[in-house]
């Protein structure tokens, strides 16, 4: 934790020690560690001078903050309108079955976290699934099966149509 505390301290110094910096500091922490630990939350709240309870109020209000560790790979299925109409929900259910995890959760072996998002703005390619911030356009259960396989066994790298998010 001391390394973490050091990083967080240095990072926080770039932002004014005011309540308005809270969200961006939490975002930076999450970018670095994938989630916000209790210790990190405390450091952040002290730095911007808000009560710990208020820091939690902020972190729990916004969907993007996570208070639990995330898996090695993050899968996000878009459930925006275009993706919904083209079967986004079915993809979520299929991934839940394949990974044995509910949407929002992380697999027991900490390999995958499954989430849904509301429209990533690539609706023309609906349904869209993002895996570790790479978009997979026109996703189908079959395509996702291949993607999962390639993540489990990287030698199977024959994924088509991927790009940076």
């Amino acid at each position, binding site marked *: 934790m001391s390394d973490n505390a050091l990083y967080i301290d240095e990072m926080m110094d770039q932002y004014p020690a005011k309540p308005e910096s809270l969200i961006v500091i939490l975002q930076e922490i999450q970018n670095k560690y994938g989630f916000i630990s209790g210790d990190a939350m405390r450091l952040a709240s002290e730095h911007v001078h808000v009560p710990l309870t208020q820091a939690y109020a902020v972190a729990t209000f916004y969907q993007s903050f996570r208070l639990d560790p995330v898996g090695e790979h993050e899968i996000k299925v878009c459930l925006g*309108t275009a993706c919904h109409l083209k079967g986004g929900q079915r993809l979520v259910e299929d991934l839940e079955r394949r990974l044995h995890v509910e949407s929002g959760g992380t697999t027991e072996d900490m390999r995958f976290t499954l989430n849904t998002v509301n429209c990533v703005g690539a609706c*023309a390619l609906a349904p869209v699934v993002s895996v570790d911030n790479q978009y997979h356009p026109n996703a189908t259960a079959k395509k996702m099966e291949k993607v999962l396989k390639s993540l489990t066994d990287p030698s199977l790298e024959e994924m088509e149509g991927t790009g940076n998010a």
Partner: protein
Amino acid sequence: MHDHALAEQSDALRLRSLDDLNRLRKQILDKRDPDQPEIVVCHGTGCLANGSADVSAAIRSALDASGIEAKVVPGIKTTGCQGFCSHGPLVVIRPRGIFYQKVKPKDAKEIIEKTIVQGDVVKRLLYKNPTDGEKILHEQDIPFYKRQTRVVLHNIGKIDPTDISDTIASGGYQALAKALTTMTPEQVVQEIETSGLRGRGGAGFPTGRKWRSALTAIEKKGRPVYVVVNGDEGDPGAFMDRTIMEGDPHAVLEGLILGAYALGANQGYLYVRAEYPLAIKHLTIAMEQARAYGLLGDNILNSGFSFDARINRGAGAFVCGESTALFTSIEGNPGNPRPKYVRSVEEGLWGRPTVLNNVETWANIPLIVNKGGDWYAKIGVPHSTGTKVFSLVGKVNNVGLVEVPMGVPLSTIVEDIGGGVPGGAPFKAVQTGGPSGGCIPYELKDTPVDFDSLTKAGSMMGSGAMIVMDNRDCVVDVGRYFLRFLEEESCGKCMPCRLGLSRMREILDNFSEGKGSEKDIEDLLSLSKAIQDSALCALGSSAPNPVLTTLKYFKDEYLAHVTRQKCPAGVCKNLITYSIDPELCTGCTSCAKQCPVGCIEGEKKKPHAIDTGLCIRCGICMDTCKFNAVNVI
């Protein structure tokens, strides 16, 4: 590369007058050879997702390998979304304007050899007109582009958004220089008033009037005052703000600086959703470059006017697009809306007078200042002037971004530009305005698309998402979808929204299971009325709209669910059955391999069949079958 390194020697770059800007522009243009071939690769989100980064890399290495000895070496340029995302990755060869679609990395060599070296066309990469099968050579002849009026989007697809010289070459910051050197702030406000511009964020509030009332508030309260860009774009299905921020970030920034000048603001904020990393990156680069050139920051263009801006990343809450929630979010709090008896122009950010406008609204400002409010007012229709960018998605052939003058008929967008519904059937309805909007049925396809006509039809302009639905889309499901979306996104502060939406969604859940009664429809109507009348913010008060309009135009479909336990569109899970057409099934076994419960049986190369008792109706077989052999009723 270029501008970053130079930013260090900032004084060398600083522009100190309109003359400086014009001189720089001339320098950039003089250095360019109009005959030099330019290979333009779309790096918008859609094309990137389809692999366009690999395409541009392949083109680059093919170019290096070709050892071209031509007098002018072709340049490669990557741009923001060119709109025609469903046909990406797109590659355009300028100045000839040859348009290649669905380009793969392996096409790169041929493009270089044939088109660049020999001047020939790679026919197989051309767009084929679906109506007559003709291949179309030039971008501007493709029906999708031909009928659009690209005003706000005019730069996107032409400029490299990460290189300010491209923006300056195409006339960027001319409006700012003009305003700072020849116009008073009051004159800028007047131009905006004359233009008739109405905010593009949803409600269509006249921008000039908003700015005017901010001025009145400032008279009372004094400064500071803030200008804010609403780049939250929470509307699912909308991506025009994303495209503008990614593809022409300087346009948004220039608009914001002009607004700041008009209102006397020295600080601005861009609130951009965190789901748009590329937009944030391009805006950040644009701001650094603008600062280096003296177009942002202290003493802009030596005019004595100083203004700077900052980006705030959203944190994934739809309600933060609402103005008061957005302000509290920037201040570092949970994004709870507050009652609006005090207007934001009087008490916005930190209780100060604040002007919040949408991304597209801001991007319109430089155009108006450049060409005049009168010019702008002539585009569109009297009470909805200018153009509007729509994201056309769903069951339509040409999915993408479309810009048209306000007031064109809906059918122009969906049928002429969008190319209609795949399969050629008429569309069933178009959902506009997102969760606050409604559905416009096919019978109203001649409805002019402008703020007031859409409202009259029971829908809304909203941010400009257009979701085309065909007869495989179920209105009960769509209503349920929006209600669930808003239920999850509601801040939960007031009762009508918190409890009302859940109750409405429960009723629709029942419908989708074939339960409920006709009386439930009355309940939906009265609940809607109650929520509309008493919700605190517009998230709640507009939430019943999708249900109300679909009830108005598609009541039969609701009734089919309740009285006949049928989902006519074949969507609602509990009311449908999958089957395999033995005539069409080739026995390829793909579906059987994918079926998660293993309820598809059949011999190889013989027709397969589904055990409907075991089937969990996941629809995977239908998605998998390449022979259209799986049916749903």
